[in-house]
């Protein structure tokens, strides 16, 4: 009961955060003039997504090159540490590039900006998607002595989790739990911001609010259902 009370209380800062961010945005009237700055925003977003995706792709090839060069002089610990961090950075770059390119393409289509913007963002999206699927193919090259599943096997993610040892799972659990809490907080803030924006401008964001609310409910139900039957 005490834990539930703490969970409930933990949402209060997010609610207040949403209110403050919403008031800040409305005060500066930034979103209501989004239409007029959409082309500039699209170009900035496109440049950012291209740079981030290219960095990710470059990381992919650096990792591939470094993983295949091993000799007697190689410091195994240093190489493993480098590959572990590089893989995480590359994965983050490609994921961010993918999300940004989809966002730019969506805004460009909605705002009917120049065609080259959505063609370029579409190409960036395809490149990011391609390398997102190619990235796990590096795992057997990075860790040849480990019995890791092939990326084209069905249930690859589940098999990779089962192939991880207890320390790796511990790191993943901590990361995922922090991510889950952050996602809950940011979605909650987003819901409050959209609500305030809708009320103040009369530009109803009901669909966005429903999508955010559904995402919040589904992810929390999925989490609770997956832990409640383990007691």
């Amino acid at each position, binding site marked *: 009961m005490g834990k539930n009370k703490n969970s409930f209380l933990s949402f209060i800062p997010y609610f207040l955060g949403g209110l403050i961010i919403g008031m800040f945005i409305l005060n500066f009237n930034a979103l209501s003039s989004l239409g007029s700055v959409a082309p500039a925003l699209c170009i900035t977003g496109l440049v950012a997504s291209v740079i981030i995706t290219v960095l990710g792709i470059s990381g992919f090839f650096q990792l591939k090159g470094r993983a295949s060069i091993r000799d007697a002089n190689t410091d195994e610990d240093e190489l*493993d540490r480098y590959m572990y961090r590089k893989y995480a950075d590359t994965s983050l770059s490609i994921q961010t590039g993918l999300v940004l390119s989809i966002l730019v393409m969506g805004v460009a289509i909605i705002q009917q900006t120049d065609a080259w913007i959505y063609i370029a963002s579409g190409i960036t999206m395809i490149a990011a998607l391609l390398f997102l699927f190619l990235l796990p193919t590096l795992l057997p090259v990075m860790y040849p*002595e480990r019995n890791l599943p092939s990326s084209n096997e069905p249930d690859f993610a589940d098999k990779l989790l089962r192939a*991880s*040892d*207890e*320390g790796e799972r*511990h790191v993943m659990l901590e990361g995922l739990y922090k991510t889950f809490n952050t996602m809950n907080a940011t979605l909650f803030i987003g819901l409050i911001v959209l609500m305030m924006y809708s009320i103040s401008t009369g530009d109803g964001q009901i669909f966005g609010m429903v999508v955010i609310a559904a995402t919040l409910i589904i992810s929390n139900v999925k989490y609770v259902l997956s832990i409640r039957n383990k007691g």
Partner: protein
Amino acid sequence: MKTRIRELRARDGLNQTELAKLAKISRQTVSLIEREEYIPSLLIAKRMAMIFDEPIESIFIFDKEEI
């Protein structure tokens, strides 16, 4: 929990990767245990004890309050 793994590795001339291979775990897990950020399972503790030929309680040292 305090651990003597780093000291014992140095004594036996093992790097983290070599110890990880002997203990059938990843180097990341060895690093986590060494940094005292993770308490290993009994199975891994037993393997470490066998590798270093030391009793488990001399490798993984707990304060009285922790037990």
